[in-house]
């Protein structure tokens, strides 16, 4: 079956259908990870986005029950050069195509994904429509143009959990699978803006009893849990419209140690008075170099974001905000901390999954912060 991808700026890419049939829309972006497509598909931060994989051979090792970052795939669509016709891995359950079909994700293969990536790089991420139905290209382009832009939309509401829940699973080990959470030394409340499970697994592995709460949970309700620390998760889209979260965070600042990742980092920045902006095509991949400005050491990081904190706004927000990490490719803000309050955050994904494990130390830093705060609060 044929399929077509139409971009709002009029560019059309044709290929063959992959996964579910039908039509889907979203912001077209590209991800440069060469592995980990199942984790990427199930990352709730991709809500509202059609993902182009720059690596051309996707699906080689199939999909399995373990390599998921949430209950289901969130991507709006999936674009690849070649989806493997065989799943070759001892853990594989379903082929990529079957997996997408089962979850109703529309995909396309046979696309010159490098041409598409270059186009996105040069023209910017934009709305697109992906269809397996025989619709003429002009109509698809018009539909893409009619779609609302990513900026200004609150996508967190679409992905956050409805009820609080306790997280019980720890990290994955070869031959063991996910291990159960062990004895807890800390209580952590994690705001779910679209949380990736690996964050929760690592927190659990670090001795945290994690309660995941909806994004709209009030500060009072969080504090009522008497947590040792508060975690702000990753999530999709633009942080600016998520005003309720920013307001809640303002109330929580200084009350408990706070650690934010990705959208959580941006929301924290907004709560601290910084501002955010949309990147041309974002950072989506597992090879982004980030420097810790204190140690001057470089971490290879996993990233997935289309918005970022404006570097100039950090200074404007007051001398208490410190830039802790920068991206060495484009000098964008990758991390910040408050000089007096127990608050820090990073733009990238120290939990990776997929991606390198270089930045796991940040979780230790959060634990240390909770420990210190417990001994001398405030």
């Amino acid at each position, binding site marked *: 079956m044929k399929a077509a991808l139409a971009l709002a700026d009029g560019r059309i890419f044709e290929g063959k259908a992959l996964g579910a049939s039908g039509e889907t829309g979203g912001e077209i972006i590209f991800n440069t990870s060469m592995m980990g497509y199942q984790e990427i598909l199930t990352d709730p931060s991709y809500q509202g986005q059609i993902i182009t994989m720059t690596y051309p051979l996707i699906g*080689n090792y199939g999909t399995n029950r373990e390599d998921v970052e949430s209950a289901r795939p969130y991507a709006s669509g999936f674009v690849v050069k070649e989806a493997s016709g065989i799943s070759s891995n001892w853990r594989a359950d379903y082929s990529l195509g079957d997996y997408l079909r089962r979850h109703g994700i529309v995909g396309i293969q046979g696309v010159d994904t490098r041409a598409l990536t270059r186009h996105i790089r040069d023209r910017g991420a934009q709305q697109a429509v992906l269809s397996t139905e025989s619709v003429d290209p002009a109509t698809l382009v018009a539909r893409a143009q009619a779609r609302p832009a990513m900026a200004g939309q609150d996508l967190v509401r679409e992905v956050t959990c409805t009820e609080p829940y306790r997280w019980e699973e720890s990290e994955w080990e070869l031959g063991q699978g996910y291990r159960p959470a062990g004895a807890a030394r800390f209580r952590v409340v994690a705001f779910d803006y679209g949380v990736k499970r690996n964050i929760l697994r690592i927190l659990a592995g670090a001795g945290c009893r994690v309660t995941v709460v909806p994004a709209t949970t009030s500060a009072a309700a969080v504090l009522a849990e008497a947590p040792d620390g508060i975690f702000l998760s990753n999530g999709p889209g633009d942080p600016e419209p998520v005003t309720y979260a920013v307001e809640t965070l303002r109330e929580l600042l200084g009350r408990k140690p706070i650690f934010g990742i990705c959208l959580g980092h941006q929301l924290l920045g907004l709560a601290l008075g910084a501002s955010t902006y949309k990147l041309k095509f974002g950072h989506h991949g597992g090879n982004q170099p980030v420097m810790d400005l204190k140690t001057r050491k470089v971490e290879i990081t996993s990233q997935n974001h289309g918005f970022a904190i404006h570097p100039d706004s950090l200074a404007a927000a007051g001398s208490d905000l410190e830039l802790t990490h920068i991206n060495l490719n484009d000098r964008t803000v990758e991390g910040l901390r408050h000089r007096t309050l127990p608050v820090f955050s990073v733009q990238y994904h120290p939990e990776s999954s997929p991606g*390198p494990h270089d930045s796991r130390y940040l979780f230790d830093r959060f634990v240390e912060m909770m420990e210190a705060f417990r001994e001398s609060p405030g």
Partner: protein
Amino acid sequence: MPKRDDIQKILLIGSGPIVIGQACEFDYSGTQACKALKEEGYTVVLVNSNPATIMTDPDFADRTYIEPITPAVVEKIIAAERPDALLPTMGGQTALNVTMELESSGVLKRHGVRLIGADVAAIHKAEDREAFREAMQRIGLALPRSIYVKSRQEARAAAAEIGFPSIIRPSFTLGGTGGNVAFNEEQFEAYVEWGLDVSPVHQLLIEESVLGWKEFELEVMRDRKDNVVIICSIENLDPMGVHTGDSITVAPAQTLTDKEYQIMRDAAIAIIREIGVDTGGSNVQFAVHPEDGRLVVIEMNPRVSRSSALASKATGFPIAKIAAKLAVGYTLDEITNDITKETPASFEPVLDYCVVKFPRFTFEKFAQTDDTLTTQMKSVGEAMAIGRTFKEALQKAIRSMEIDSHGFESRPHTGEALREKLRTPCADRLWYIGQALRDGMGLDEIYELSKIDRWFLFNIQEIIRFESALREAHELTVLLREAKTLGFSDRRIAEIRGVPERTVREMRRSEGIQATFKTVDTCAAEFEAYTPYLYSTYESECEAGPTMRRKVMILGGGPNRIGQGIEFDYCCVHASFALQEIGYESIMVNCNPETVSTDYDTSDRLYFEPLTLEDVLEIIRVEKPDGVLLQYGGQTPLKLAVPLEQEGVPIIGTSPDAIDRAEDRERFQKLLRKLGLKQPDNGTATSLAEALEIARDIGYPVVVRPSYVLGGRAMSIVFNDGDLEAYMASAVRASSEHPVLLDRFVMNATEIDVDAISDGTDVVIGGIMEHIEEAGIHSGDSACSLPPYSLKPQVLDEIRRQTVALAGELQVVGLMNIQYAVQDDEIFVLEVNPRASRTVPFVSKAIGVPLAKLGAKVMTGMRLAELGFTEERSIPYFCVKEAVFPFLKFPGVDTLLSPEMKSTGEVMGIDRRFGSAFAKSQIGAGTLLPTSGKAFVSVRDTDKQRVLPTVRKLVDLGFEIVATRGTAAFLREHGVAAQVVNKVLEGPPHIVDGITGREIAMVINTPTGLAAEQDSFSIRRSALTYFIPYFTTVAGAREAVNGIEAMAAEELKICPIQEYHRTGGETKS
């Protein structure tokens, strides 16, 4: 952190001659290191005995010692040059081993030389298996179970514990020499014995077999701030059991989930930290159990390697260059990525294509050895191909190999014979897999037999299935685009359809199905790329963006093989440099990942492509070059001369017609007659009867060879009708299409090689080389001297006259090479090659004139007068080139030289005195000439008189002579005291006992004929395995003894090539 300013002068050790396991990749790394270090303002002192390298060009280092890479010589260089630091990680195992010896003998300490890149402790920890094992245990990583042994008894005990199959790995050998898999006790005993012999420390590891596990490699880099990045992951198609150099490998890894990959990545990082490689690149090999993902560490190389060259070409990340910069103190974040220009080197490259590396074997040269692939490397070269899919890259890799395969041609095997082919790894197993799939064998069965991951098998199956679609389709046009995206060559499609290749090409053109070109950019298009490093694929968008500049396209040599190696890459690189110097855009086309020519900064533009007519034409269509230079890459591009010309492609330099006149037997004969030059009597036979008639007519011995192969393939000297009949029966099948050529063998003649250059009007001799060995041994295999050391001046003048006449008649524009045989002052023309020859780099280094550069310039129309090269240089020193052979890698192969080329590489010895230059060439080639001891002599009757002066000289030098009965009797008759030793057949104690007992210091043994060759085989073979110097020709022995004499008279001196060129080498240290 800025670069170190506590060091100014850095010594770099190269890897020496090209051998199996150590090839051009170390010219690539050394050249990059030289460039990077000089760029940073350091003074670079280089030692490398290999003249065919770019790095030994006088411009690349400040002081270049083309001297043997031995601890003694390097010590002299250190004493003379007083370097502050030594960078040991660029010259392969050779450089590491020499460095370790210099360290343990205290030389480095004595002269205050610091190691940069990797220190002694790190090298030891990575190289010593026991230390490595302990290190891995410390960081909680598993290895296959293993036991380290130093004797046969210990080995037996180890086998009892580990069981079969088990792996035998000798310590400290190159390319896994002596490594083997034993499936039973008998094999085990044999392999252990051999392994103990070849290990310089007589140490082996007996290891649990992880045969059939998936094999992976990661290329890791670390800087002094402890930043670590993975440059590339590589997955081997051939599972564990086949040396990675002999495996088909794929980048990036294809069948690992992110969770599994990150385990490997974490392990690699932990390993480089634990081993303690402070700065630079390392390679870590892993095995993964296909059914449970269990991971074990196989080994770690604390230096740049063949895989780092591959990873550099596969990703566009220049590992060696960056490693050199890290060694002098930069950190990864301080170095800019050349390709993107704005992002730093502290990142991990991502690919948006698939890379396949394919090994190139030359088993046909070594008939006595079997082509089963094991843990000891046997391939002599490799090609790399890039495609958007594995299928495309694989099919491009196949046609890059130049083994007359253009896809998955069928194989005649079926049933159990076929299954056996799948079970036993061999050079062409891939085609048997194709055949099995064609026969309908299931993926699971093929997997069970071969243990090749089903993902690879499935992709091959898709190719095979499409073949039948192609075969059965009524209309080819509808399938053509898909065929091209699957990587099918026009030629293979044509074969399947039973039409000429041209028909497919024309159909493609009329359908508008043409190759597009994509960029290798390290970042999957996330950033703009400024370096035009391109590959072809069949996609929608072409990024080639050709310029409007004046441009010349250079066709490279493809994979290294015996007969066509680094020398031709050297020429291509020089052509590129020369063209850039005179304002041309240089475009390189090649598919060999080991080479300098495929560095993205060697030429203005690089196309990493197979060198087939189809692939080259697609590039020409896009680039529209003003000229194509195809006379520099050896036979590979030369074969394209006529077809390209027929396609209207402008070929610069000597015309394809002139090339044909030199290559076509009849036209060549006419040419010589016209000029009044002589050649040995000859004839062409299309049947055995004809051959016998011609042979009797011209008289034995006769050199016989098939007409359709080059480089001495299947060439032989026959002495009588019987030999000729045997040859005709086994080696070739003569027919009118494939006639056999017979030449009278010019006995006891001196062979001469001449390299010359012509601009169409003026001809200048580059160098006249006199071979040491008699005519009849392939020119690539014999040692030679420049200038000639024994020929009369009037003979040389006549050779000069003939050379000029031939160049003029052929209207040569560019380089040419002529081979002559001189017998009693009579000159015969053996061969004329109006193209770059294997000796161009040697001659250029010898005379200090970059012949290949000049050649490229005259090919664009410049005159030699303009270039200032108008007369032959005479040099006041001797340069001796010696060949290096891979015999040690091929058990059961005789070491005798013949008209069939067998050497993989060469070294150069330079000295004011011929004897010393020759001695250096021997030492450089690994023949450590003895200065005392017992010399064993056993020669055929015709050589007895000729060898006498040499033996007398040995006696004068204080050697004792040991000889077989016949030779001893002759020597005694002539007043030489010789002790008799038994031949092997005469029973023990015999000569081989003497060799294995290391009582013999050198062996002189010339073969007598087929039967006696068998008899003396064990003598030569044991001398080889025990590293006892051996000489199989009288001339070789004579000059070796002269070399010993020179060494006895005066200690060998060292002098950089720049000094030889400037002062003739008079100001020696």
